[in-house]
């Protein structure tokens, strides 16, 4: 008998239970209720977001695999496909930062090699409360160590990402992990349980009691006592995963594998149900044959365990031995635990007894889809005047403050803990607009950027999402890459609140608009809801991972100034866009005003111009303008290069704009490039209808910016560097304790 209390424990509503009764035609037993609970959790079913996610563009000639598989894939030439995805591990990372972040990396790596691809690049997007807020240091240290601990040992370089801080993330940090792998286009594997009678093979680590109901935990908000949920966080073993990677790729190469899926959220339940669902088949599992780490586990526990580093394979009948031989070579467990059936049911047996018997569609396609009530976002803060408390008395001081602000400052303390060079493909590592990894054996490289912007999205979710897509693409373009596709991680509060649901709807709309206009399909991703603590939701925070192709890896563009005498050209138009800006928050602590207006057609023109100018050999460097506007971008161009002698520049901005706007506005669709032939570049820009102006030249050891009719900036680059590296120096010497 299922009680209301049992339903509550399983995160199921009374209506959902009614639906289970009608789908089953009877009462579920405890194990079956467990299966429904995890498969219908927000985390696995996307029940609140699915309706809206369907509106995102997912197609394009370059798309090899869209949403629905373990990861998306795009064609990158030379017969290869890039397989990539981003996923959240927010809730586990708050409860246990090291293991939460580590297993987040482990999970996304498995999603990639499940497709037959070898992971070659990891990135991440991290958000925490302010550094001086209680607990932030512990979370930051733990998360960074966890990401490094797992990725470094596994041997996939962490080549980039972002780290941001804002008060709303204090009780609910965001840990989004991105991974990209390469596979021969024709050898992509899919998670399908095809072929009646084919054996179902369990490989990898043994099953224990860890992580039971992790998916359900990730679908609820935090309140008092959440720290006690520690047992729902899994424990990672990167060594096991590395061995599993090698064994899986070797097993896939034998031709004996029909389908493969990793056991991530909801473990054996989700992998078996999804594999059967995609193939329209059924699956039978004998729990007695599942390798177990602990004695006396119940069917419920075995089916729901989220023990890490496990995979489910379907082998071709008669070729089990070929698969087993590979896994035994790597000293891994491989056990035939069941077979594929044709009757469309998941059947679970234990000691000959039928423990669960559920139609596959009931767990997957028939999971509830909600059209939750939502209200059009209308944040009153967005209507306030951002200029009210701002002054431009001392722009040099403002620039130094911005460079020292945690959101802008050098994150060397973070990425020095990540192995950034293993696999020997890293052309551009962390700290740049986009990370660049070459594709071994070809002339090409991939540019990857992971970006989000909580502030803008909080003020105006739709505008913020458009800006996030534009910035991620612009970063890829700044490296000389043409954007091919994107993956998204949507981090929000509780969808049961109409205002949060409204944010989600608006963000998906804005994201869809920008992706369509910029020609970048979304090939997959992840939704993380219920990011709330004590009823306070985070900023709506969509994070984009954009992948672009660089045709000639040796011609990768970087952001830093290279040589004295190079002309510097500002591309794009500067308007009075200080709403939600970094300057505003750093100088006044306020997050108000409308986010910058974005003209997607102008953004696209900028991308095309930069790619064309680079093709014509006109560009020496390129840097995106974002947080902190032109002043910060100029400083970063000086700071990117580390040499014995600093390299600055002298600039004079066009008349007509007040210094505050000219220097710190965050107008999108702008880029700062250096060139040896400014005239040719200006000519090309004019023909492409992109506003462009030569604002000065590289040289000297100072950054000097003259603003006609207003105060400018004139500072030694060494002083800028001192401000920009102050956070890293404090963290490295433990001075923040």
């Amino acid at each position, binding site marked *: 008998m299922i009680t209301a209390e049992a339903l509550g424990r399983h995160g199921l509503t009374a209506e959902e239970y009614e639906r289970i009764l009608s789908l089953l035609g009877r009462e579920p037993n405890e194990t079956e209720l467990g299966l429904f609970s995890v498969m219908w959790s927000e985390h696995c079913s996307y029940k609140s977001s699915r309706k809206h996610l369907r509106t995102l563009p997912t197609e394009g000639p370059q798309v090899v695999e869209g949403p629905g598989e373990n990861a998306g894939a795009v064609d990158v030439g030379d017969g290869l496909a890039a397989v990539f995805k981003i996923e959240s591990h927010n809730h586990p990372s708050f409860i246990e930062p090291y293991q939460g972040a580590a297993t987040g990396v482990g999970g996304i790596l498995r999603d990639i090699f499940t497709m037959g691809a070898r992971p070659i690049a990891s990135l991440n997007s991290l958000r925490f409360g302010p550094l001086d807020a209680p607990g932030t240091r512990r979370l930051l240290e733990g998360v960074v160590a966890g990401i490094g601990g797992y990725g*470094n040992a596994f041997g996939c370089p962490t080549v980039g990402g972002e780290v941001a801080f804002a008060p709303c993330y204090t009780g609910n940090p965001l840990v989004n992990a991105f991974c990209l792998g390469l596979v021969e286009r024709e050898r992509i594997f899919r998670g399908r349980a095809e072929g009646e009678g084919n054996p179902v093979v369990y490989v990898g680590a043994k099953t224990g009691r860890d992580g039971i109901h992790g998916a359900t935990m990730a679908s609820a908000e935090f309140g008092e006592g959440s720290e006690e949920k520690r047992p729902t966080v899994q424990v990672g073993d990167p*060594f096991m995963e*590395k*061995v599993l990677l090698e064994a899986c790729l070797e097993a896939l190469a034998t031709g004996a594998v029909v389908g493969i899926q990793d056991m991530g959220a909801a473990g054996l339940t989700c992998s078996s149900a999804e594999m059967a669902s995609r193939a329209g088949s059924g699956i039978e599992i004998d729990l007695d044959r599942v390798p177990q780490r602990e004695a006396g586990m119940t069917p419920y526990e075995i089916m729901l365990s989220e023990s890490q580093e496990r995979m489910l394979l379907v082998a071709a009948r008669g070729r089990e031995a070929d698969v087993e031989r590979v896994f035994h070579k790597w000293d891994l467990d491989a056990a035939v635990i069941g077979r594929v059936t044709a009757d469309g049911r998941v059947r679970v047996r234990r000691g000959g007894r039928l423990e669960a018997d559920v139609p596959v569609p009931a767990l997957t396609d028939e999971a509830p889809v909600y059209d939750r009530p939502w209200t059009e976002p209308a944040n009153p803060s967005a209507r306030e005047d951002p200029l009210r408390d701002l002054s431009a008395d001392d722009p040099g001081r403002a620039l130094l403050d911005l460079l020292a602000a945690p959101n802008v400052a050098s994150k060397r303390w973070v990425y020095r803990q*990540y192995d950034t060079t*293993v696999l*020997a493909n890293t052309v551009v590592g962390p700290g740049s607009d986009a990370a660049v990894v*070459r594709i071994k054996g070809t002339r090409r490289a991939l540019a990857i950027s992971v970006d989000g912007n909580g502030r803008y999205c909080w003020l105006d979710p739709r505008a913020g999402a458009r800006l996030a897509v534009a910035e991620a693409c612009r970063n890829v373009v700044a490296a000389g890459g043409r954007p091919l596709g994107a993956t998204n991680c949507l981090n929000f509060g509780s969808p049961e609140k109409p205002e949060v649901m409204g944010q989600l709807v608006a963000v998906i709309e804005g994201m869809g608009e920008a992706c369509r206009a910029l020609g970048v399909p979304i090939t997959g991703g992840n939704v993380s809801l219920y990011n709330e603590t004590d009823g306070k939701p985070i900023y709506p925070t969509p994070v984009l991972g954009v992948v672009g192709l660089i045709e000639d890896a*040796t011609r990768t563009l970087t952001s830093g100034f290279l040589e004295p005498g190079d002309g510097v050209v500002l591309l794009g138009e500067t308007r009075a866009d200080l709403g939600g800006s970094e300057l505003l928050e750093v100088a006044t602590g306020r997050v108000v005003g409308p986010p910058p207006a974005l003209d997607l057609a102008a953004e696209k023109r900028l991308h095309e111009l930069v790619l064309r100018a680079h093709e014509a050999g006109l560009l020496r460097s390129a840097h995106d303008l974002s947080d902190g506007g032109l002043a910060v971008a100029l400083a970063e161009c000086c700071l990117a290069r580390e040499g*014995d002698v600093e390299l600055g520049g002298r600039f004079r901005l066009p008349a007509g704009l007040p210094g505050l706007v000219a220097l710190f506005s965050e107008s999108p669709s702008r880029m700062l490039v250096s060139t040896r032939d400014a005239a040719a570049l200006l000519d090309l820009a004019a023909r492409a209808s992109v506003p462009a102006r030569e604002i000065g030249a590289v040289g000297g050891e100072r950054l000097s910016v003259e603003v006609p009719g207003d105060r400018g900036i004139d500072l030694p680059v060494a002083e800028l560097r001192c401000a920009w590296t102050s956070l890293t120096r404090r963290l490295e010497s433990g001075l923040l304790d």
Partner: protein
Amino acid sequence: MGVVTFPGSNCDRDTEHALTLCGARARLVWHKDRDLSGLDALVVSGGFSYGDYLRTGAIARFSPVMSALLEFAGRGGPVLGICNGFQILQEAGLLPGAMLRNRRVKFLSQDVHLRVERADSCASAGIPPGRVLRMPIAHGDGNFYLPEPELDRLEAAGQVVFRYVRADGQLDPEANPNGSLRAIAGVCNGAGNVVGLMPHPERAAEAILGSEDGRVVLEALLSFTAGLRQGRAATGAAR
């Protein structure tokens, strides 16, 4: 040349790739293999063999390939250990010293400058002493340790092959990232045919990756190995 793969090795393919770029015929050697015939140099590459659980390199040294490797090294065969490979060779007793956690107890991933200290080890053959090479490190346990009297003996015997220095070749505590005693980044055995270093030459073997200095080390291994081969041929001919 053979590049040994342990479970958890993660630089074996990079090393094979870089050796091939340098003109070597390289292949991977599985840790359960005992037959090293046909190989005239071995590289024990980096990674986290057996997860580095217990202690770095501590379990790998019991792999079947290690007895063959010990015999190979004992016959004078050139063996290069990189990063985790260096740690494994220490655990196996082929190289002196032990690795402690990095000075600031954090994993360190960054470029370093190395100064070549002797020109006749298997990984520095023909490189003029004093030459400075730039390549990355990526390790958590690279803080070289030996008791002082033994360090003095090591120095006196000329077994220090590489030291962490500034770009201009000068010693500087700031240029020693992990706190290694005497800024030691690489050492060799008494005979010079076994070398270990913490930095990764295989990640600095192509201009596109930012440095080609790693080739200098790998090419030294090639020329050392070729020298041995010619020596053997000459002896054979004389007989």
